[in-house]
């Protein structure tokens, strides 16, 4: 029982990260009907850049990025603000450059052209990160002074609480924006019918730019949370995040934001709980390394039973 609760808590944490990533895929898919394969790399870029900020400001030191003076009070808030806002800004700017230079000229190109270009952007971006930030696995500080709580016998860290609160706040903000504001209505209108949106006076390109910015910002938060949670970041992590984020988006019903969140959490849970029990169930034959089996099983089953995803409806493109 304790093992289960423990894995479930861990799974929820990682699931929230997947949900944030999935939303970026989903929203871009909603307005452009394309898979932005570079999104996973943009998430990692956020983490890489904020790590650079931490080093440049002397907050972390040495190869292991150790924090010598514990962060507390105002200083902690400022550092967290710098890390997250800096990462979001860097991912957003990069994302907008990609949109302008690659995706916009391809707006009317065939799906295959766009797909291959997006893969190309992903490879270019991860390699650029290797060149700029280095090819080694980097340790990433958790920034918070570790504290643990006991929940039903399992431990839950203050970092997990932090990630949960941050994600929930972002989700509330995002759902409010998409459902209740003028920009949100424009995003949904552009997703449904770009030409009609233009006829009503909506600057479609500006709305698409806003969507890329939103997606990249959420992605950077996810990438930084991921790095803090695992204590490391690596220029190839984007590939993993892409697969899992995209799988969550598809399972949830691409374009359906609620579906993305549910599927992200589901995949995080499955991965952690499944990974925890796999060695026990198989008598040690399969280790936790095989935990992704569950993700892809669910993906396959979803695609067979309900191709539009858990909450997706074939005709609805962006819905919150």
């Amino acid at each position, binding site marked *: 029982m304790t093992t289960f609760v423990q894995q479930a808590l861990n799974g929820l944490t990682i699931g929230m990260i997947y949900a944030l990533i999935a939303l970026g895929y989903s929203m871009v898919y909603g307005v452009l009907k394309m898979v932005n394969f570079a999104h996973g790399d943009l998430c990692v870029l956020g983490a890489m850049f904020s790590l650079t900020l931490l080093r440049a400001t002397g907050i972390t030191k040495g190869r292991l990025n150790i924090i010598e003076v514990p962060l507390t009070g105002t200083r902690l808030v400022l550092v967290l603000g710098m890390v997250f806002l800096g990462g979001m800004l860097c991912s957003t700017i990069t994302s907008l450059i990609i949109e302008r230079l690659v995706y916009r000229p391809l707006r009317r190109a065939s799906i295959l052209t766009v797909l291959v270009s997006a893969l190309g952007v992903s490879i270019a971006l991860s390699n650029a990160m290797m060149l700029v930030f280095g090819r080694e696995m980097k340790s990433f500080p958790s920034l918070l002074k570790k504290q643990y709580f006991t929940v039903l016998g399992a431990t839950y860290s203050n970092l997990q609480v932090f990630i949960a609160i941050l994600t929930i706040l972002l989700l509330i903000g995002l759902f409010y924006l998409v459902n209740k504001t003028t920009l949100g*209505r424009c995003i*949904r*209108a552009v997703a449904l019918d770009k030409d*009609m949106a*233009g*006829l009503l006076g*909506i*600057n479609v390109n500006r709305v698409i730019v806003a969507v890329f910015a939103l997606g990249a910002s959420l992605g950077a938060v996810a990438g930084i949370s991921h790095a803090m949670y695992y204590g490391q970041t690596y220029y190839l992590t984007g590939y993993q995040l892409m697969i899992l984020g995209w799988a969550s988006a598809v399972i949830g019903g691409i374009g359906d934001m609620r579906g993305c969140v549910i599927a992200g959490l589901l995949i995080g849970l499955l991965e952690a709980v499944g990974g925890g029990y796999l060695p026990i169930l198989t008598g040690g034959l399969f280790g936790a390394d095989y935990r992704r089996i569950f993700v892809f099983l669910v993906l396959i089953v979803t695609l067979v039973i309900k191709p539009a995803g858990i909450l997706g409806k074939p*005709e609805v493109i962006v819905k919150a």
Partner: protein
Amino acid sequence: MSLLRVENLVTKYGGIPAIKGISFEVREGEIVALIGANGAGKSTTLMTISGALKPSSGKIIFDGKEIQGMPSHEIANLGIMQCPEGRRLFSSMTVEENLLLGYYSRRREGKPGEAMQRVFKLFPRLEERLHQAAGTLSGGERQMLAIGRALMAKPRLLMLDEPSLGLAPKLVETVLDTIKQIRDEGVTILLVEQNARAALSMADRAYALEVGNITLEGTGQELLHDERVIKAYLGGR
């Protein structure tokens, strides 16, 4: 004075011209009808004026300003609204959200309440259905919403592409009456119709479009009694 003047307009789809150098004008306060058979180029004309299609040559002058080639959102912001063929409602969004999107070009001028009331006065039904998804409305209600959405922008020129399509005869009459009412409130109207008899009987002036060329023009009454029009568009007598 002419609010809209189109001069030698040519629009092509992949090299093939759909309109081949048409010219016409719409004066302030008029209802002008554009009639023509399927494929004549009526929708293409409206889409080109709206900026959703780029003309390969010719001029579109709105309120003294050349607008051909401008992006569609800028043209909308000048006060040209189109109610396109097939309504093109945002079907998963509510009636209210569709109307608010119609108000987008006026969003800086304050709250949409007054524009909304004006639309409800014309179409009380929409007020009752405010929170219903547009996709679940009846055909007639959808047409009301499509027109209502365009009116939310308080357009100077309203272009309607086959507003009577798919409506029961009684409803056609209601919609056409409403169009007259809208004109009486000061909105200039360019009306594209398959239902040539109805369009001509309410239009101040009209043009007949035939495979990309304007072949006839005159007042609504003139065309309504023109032998060629009767033969081609009114199904003889």
